[in-house]
């Protein structure tokens, strides 16, 4: 899944040990799956909600489709930002956010570790936490990539399902 998230893996922060632990495990997977779900759900809402009314085409337009596209991006962005990256100050055990994983990783790695290593890990842990709070680290590249993926999935699903609707066959375009 890191193929989709080249913006994240190209980020300087990626070099820090804490990241692959989370993202290569569930982060990218949940990001892609979440983006896919958002794209599918919004496309289905648009096509089978707005484009399946035989009595009106008020909401069956390219403009409304574009608004749904935007919503897919925004929802994807905040899903990645809030759910997957999370708030470092309010992490809860049992959640699968990066902020929580960051804490868990620190706890696991420092158990019985030499003082120097604990100090080093503590420094990295705090730096990630601090950067995340300021919107830094991989927060933005991860969120924006998830948003783009959500948009992409919305677009792809649109092309697939539009032909099965009453009034949405030409939205966003007739072909393919």
């Amino acid at each position, binding site marked *: 899944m890191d193929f989709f998230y080249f913006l994240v893996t190209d980020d300087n922060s990626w070099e820090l040990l804490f990241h692959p632990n989370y993202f290569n495990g569930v982060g990218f997977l949940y990001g892609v799956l979440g983006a896919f779900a958002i794209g599918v759900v919004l496309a289905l809402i648009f096509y089978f909600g707005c484009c399946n009314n035989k009595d*009106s085409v008020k909401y069956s337009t390219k403009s409304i489709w574009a608004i749904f596209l935007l919503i897919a991006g925004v929802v994807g962005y905040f899903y990645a930002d809030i759910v997957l990256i999370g708030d470092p100050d309010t992490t809860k055990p049992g959640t699968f956010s990066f902020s929580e994983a960051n804490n868990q990783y620190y706890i696991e790695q420092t158990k019985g570790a030499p003082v120097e290593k604990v100090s080093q890990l503590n420094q990295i842990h705090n730096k990630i936490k601090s950067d995340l709070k300021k919107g830094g680290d991989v927060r933005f590249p991860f969120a924006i990539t998830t948003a783009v993926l959500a948009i992409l999935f919305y677009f792809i699903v649109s092309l697939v399902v539009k032909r099965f609707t009453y009034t949405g066959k030409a939205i966003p375009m007739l*072909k393919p």
Partner: protein
Amino acid sequence: MQKLFIFGIGGTGERVLRSFTMLLAAGVPAFDNYEIYPIIVDYDQKNADKDRTAKLLMEYQAIHNAAFSRHVASSKADGVKEQFFAASLHDLTAGVEGGGNFLFPFKPASDHEKFRKYIGCDAFPKELNETEAFIKSLYDDSDRPDTELNLDMTVGFKGNPNIGSVVFNNIRTTDTFKQFLSNFDPNNNDKVVIIGSLFGGTGASGIPEIAKAITSVKTNPEVAAVLVLPYFAPESKENGAIKASRFNSKTKAAVSFYESSAMKDHIKRCYYVGDFTPTTIPYSEGGDTQKNNANLVELVAAMMIENFVSGRKGISSDGSADYKFSFDSNIYANSRQESHDRLYVTDFDDVSFQNVLRYLIQLSIALKFVRDEIYEPKSLSDSRSYVSLLNLNEILKGGKEGKNGQDRVWGFISGLSSFYGKLQEWMKELDYEGNGTTIPGQSHRIALCDMERPLDSIVVCKTVEDIKEENPQGGFLNRIITGAKTAMEKTSGSSRNNLDADFLNARMDSSIKDNGSVGHYDTSKNSLRSDHEPEWVLADILYRVVKEAFDEGKVKISEN
């Protein structure tokens, strides 16, 4: 396919044909299985009514051909059914010298030809002295210009059936009539309708002559005559050849002749229609000044053709072959109408409404939609499936120069847009209330549709005041019921009458669907089916959409 030959004789016949063309355009189902052969017969070469009807028929034919000719050829279908402009028109007179444009080549041999010249009154050979004497005993042979022998036949027979019948007697020898006879096959259930007035010259003389000419050659033909009784009265003019005061006596003479002669033996059904209160019209002896407003009587006469072709019994039929319609028996139903002059679609009986009038309303809606939502906008929303699938934006941009059949779609759309004006003009004439004292209004107006109104109120309905006036005793109760209905509609936020462009656009889109080989759309290819020509698809979905709207009660036809 069965054929339907319609002879529109004289000015009245032409105007009835005009109304009949509107019924054909509306897709009245009775004509679905017919090839229609309109034949305009008029000695008056410059008659404005004739030109108008001929042009309308040609316009109809162009629209029909644009929409359906390619589809009929490719599908090898036996005609077109359940569509606007479904019936195919055929011009029997095309290719005949002096014919074409549905006009029977029936005209004076020279300009200002006099009747005396036509019968050779001044050139009888000596051996026909007795004939000459006989002719002179029948006609006034003085030199006065207003005598029958001196009648200038350039503008027809000016209300003289005794002259017309002489001229019409030769019609059976013409090439066009022979061509008609060779096309007309009673064994194929082909039908003939002859339309004309009994109070003028051309129709009254032409109807029996044509009927006789048919039955003298064909066995047991299905022939009907629509006999129009006086329904208009030209303003009087000093020394004018046409006098409205003589219409009734001339009609009585004609009816008496038809009754006493064997004329009715040649006809399966006789339809009579007239108006006891004729509409006053400006005086005209014919030519380019004869351009009368459409009249309710002509519409009813056209509806009689539908009655004949459908084979229904007339509601006033007592078992005889005569069907009599006027505005005080069958159609003229409500007490209010006896003293007032405006009728509405709801004043007609349900059979007339369901078989004819509803289709005129549907046509009005369709034409308004095409003109306002497709033809006139500079560009159409390509969010609409039908716009994109039919490539309408490119077609409208390319106009008639379009390639690969796009010119046909253009022809269909622009044809409908032009026909909009014709239909609107016709309906306005039917509902003409007069222009002060200069141009009198119709004595009986019929309010059908006003195409300048929004779609949800396109049908002209009785006003609440009209209804109250008709039902004064039920006023209080009606108010309670109407008030309750309105309140319920407001509370539920719904109304059954919400026909608008949004609704029609949605139905246009949803009508292009994949429904096996019947549907126009192929889901797997995301395109129209290969054998579904876009012009036919457009015509088909347009008809279906408007019909659906009507069937679902979206079209408001009355206030209550």
